[in-house]
């Protein structure tokens, strides 16, 4: 019983981390109709930001997160202006391969600048745990889990309770009608993309004390994030959160029962199955999967 609880707890915590990435990715898809292949690269940049500020200036990631997140936000602004917005409304090949090209570029820029060496940040949070009811919880994981939930809640509140949030929802539902109602659609795109990648960057900083840092670290996570957003329904924020926690638990459970590699295979099989049987995911709007532009 204790073991089951521990596995579920581990799964939930890792699922929380995934949620922070998945919510951003699904928001970008819902609003811009772009699958952001470069999403996890912003997490990677956040990790390196945390590493350099820690190793040069001795800044704790829990401090530097307030410096790095705005920088990643600005980077998101630049990327949206230069790459993403130029691809919107173009053929599928442009939409897909523009961000895929960006992902290759960022990954290898990191590889060239900072080498393939595996780096790590060690702070008080590294390896420290606290025990609740016999279940051991990593401090760093719990902090990032809380940050992820806070972000998801804040985003939900923003989208449903504020004027600008409602404007974003309007663009997600029908960009032409939204434009006719006087909403600056391009600004909505810019804002959405930058906020989403800034969240990815923030997550990178928060997990720096416990994850190893290397140029291709984003790639090890991005496919899992794809699985999550499709399961939850591409474009659905609550769906992404629920699916992230679910995948976290499945991953932890399968990893324990049948080994990590075959566990991974299992959820990819589930992913393919969901795409075939219910492409709109569990929470997605029906017909979202055939939406053209």
């Amino acid at each position, binding site marked *: 019983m204790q073991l089951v609880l521990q596995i579920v707890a581990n799964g939930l915590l890792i699922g929380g981390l995934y949620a922070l990435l998945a919510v951003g990715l699904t928001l970008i898809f819902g609003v811009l109709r772009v699958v952001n292949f470069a999403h996890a690269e912003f997490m990677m940049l956040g990790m390196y930001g945390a590493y350099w500020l820690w190793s040069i200036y001795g800044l704790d990631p829990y401090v530097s997160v307030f410096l790095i997140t705005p920088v990643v936000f600005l980077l998101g602004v630049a990327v949206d202006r230069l*790459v993403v917005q130029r691809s919107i409304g173009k053929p599928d090949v442009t939409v897909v391969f523009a961000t895929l090209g960006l992902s290759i570029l960022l990954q290898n820029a990191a590889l060239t600048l900072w080498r393939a060496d595996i780096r790590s940040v060690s702070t008080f949070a590294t390896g420290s745990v606290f025990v609740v009811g016999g279940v051991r919880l990593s401090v760093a994981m719990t902090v990032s889990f809380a940050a992820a939930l806070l972000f998801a809640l804040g985003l939900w509140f923003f989208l449903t309770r504020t004027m600008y949030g409602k404007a974003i929802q309007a663009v997600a539902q029908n960009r032409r009608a939204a434009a006719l109602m006087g909403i600056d659609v391009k600004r909505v795109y810019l804002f959405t993309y930058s906020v989403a990648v800034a969240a990815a960057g923030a997550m990178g900083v928060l997990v720096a004390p416990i994850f190893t840092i290397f140029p291709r670290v984003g790639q090890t996570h991005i496919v899992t994030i794809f699985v999550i957003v499709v399961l939850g329904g591409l474009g659905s924020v609550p769906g992404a959160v629920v699916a992230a926690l679910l995948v976290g638990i499945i991953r932890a459970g399968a990893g324990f029962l049948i080994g990590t*590699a075959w566990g991974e295979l299992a959820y990819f099989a589930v992913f393919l199955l969901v795409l075939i049987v219910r492409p709109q995911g569990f929470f997605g709007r029906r017909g979202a999967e055939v939406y053209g532009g």
Partner: protein
Amino acid sequence: MRISDASPISPAGARIAAAAALVLLLCVPLVVRDIYRLDLGITVLIWASLATAWNISGGFAGGLSLGHAAFFGVGAYTSTLLFLRLGITPWIGIFAGAVLAAMLGALLGVITFRLKGPFFVLATLAFGIVVHIINVNWRGLTRGAAGLLLPFRGGPQNMLFLNLWAYWYTGLGLLVLTVGVSMGIERSRLGYYLVALREDEDAARSLGVRVVRSKVIAAAVSAALAACAGSVYAAFIQYIDPDSTTQFELSVQIALVAIVGGMGTTFGPVLGAAIVIPLGEMLRARLGGGAALVVYGFLLMVIVLTAPNGAIAGVRLLVRRLRRLIDSRRKADA
């Protein structure tokens, strides 16, 4: 692609040009004595075939696949394992690989034909990753990350040659096969069906195009040809492992070559291989692997954003301009 974007060369003209190009390619080993260049040339031939195979489903039918390395890998591993375990020559193994890949391609086609845009892309990506995970972890069959080494046994009857020029002709044969199939499909009823489906599936369906059948055939043929390229690659390099055959990056590069050259056209992917592979090799030698990939990523971004029709569109424009120039000169002379 609009009708006005069609090739400025007539079908007969294209055939003559292709025949001339083939004659030139046949002479290459007689002229090029440099081992490094010939080796690079063979790599270009294999990539040209691979991109041409991708283009049949990705370009003609518009199903952007990010999982084609899976079929390449199936071809490489099938012919190699048949040779290592059962002593069956790769000349037969290549067909076994093609049949196996065609079945997998058809299966993937059947389960994904309804998916559009990003959903199709993600499904093919997941499929490719499933195959890669199986390849890495089924150590009893594939030896996992350790890879498989082809011992030099037998020689020509086992697709293993002492001379590079023999591989050149094998690669050229592969290219003739894939381009031939691609040309055949482009000019056939199936080819028109596929383009109609790509442009407007509902309209095509209402006019009687058999949607599922056409897509599944395209997927199967594309997979089979990619597998053939895999078998030739394995015989050429004589060592295969998951990273060099089924990795996600490879799937991206297959698509990249076809897109840079010009997807949806027969010769675009071939042109793409002739541009991308030597360029990549040069960049790697000058700048190192990471920096070369930075340029790759940048190139991919710029091409899809500014010239989604690829390099072949530029070539066509050039031919059209030259024509006009020659015509106006003639008129001036007369």
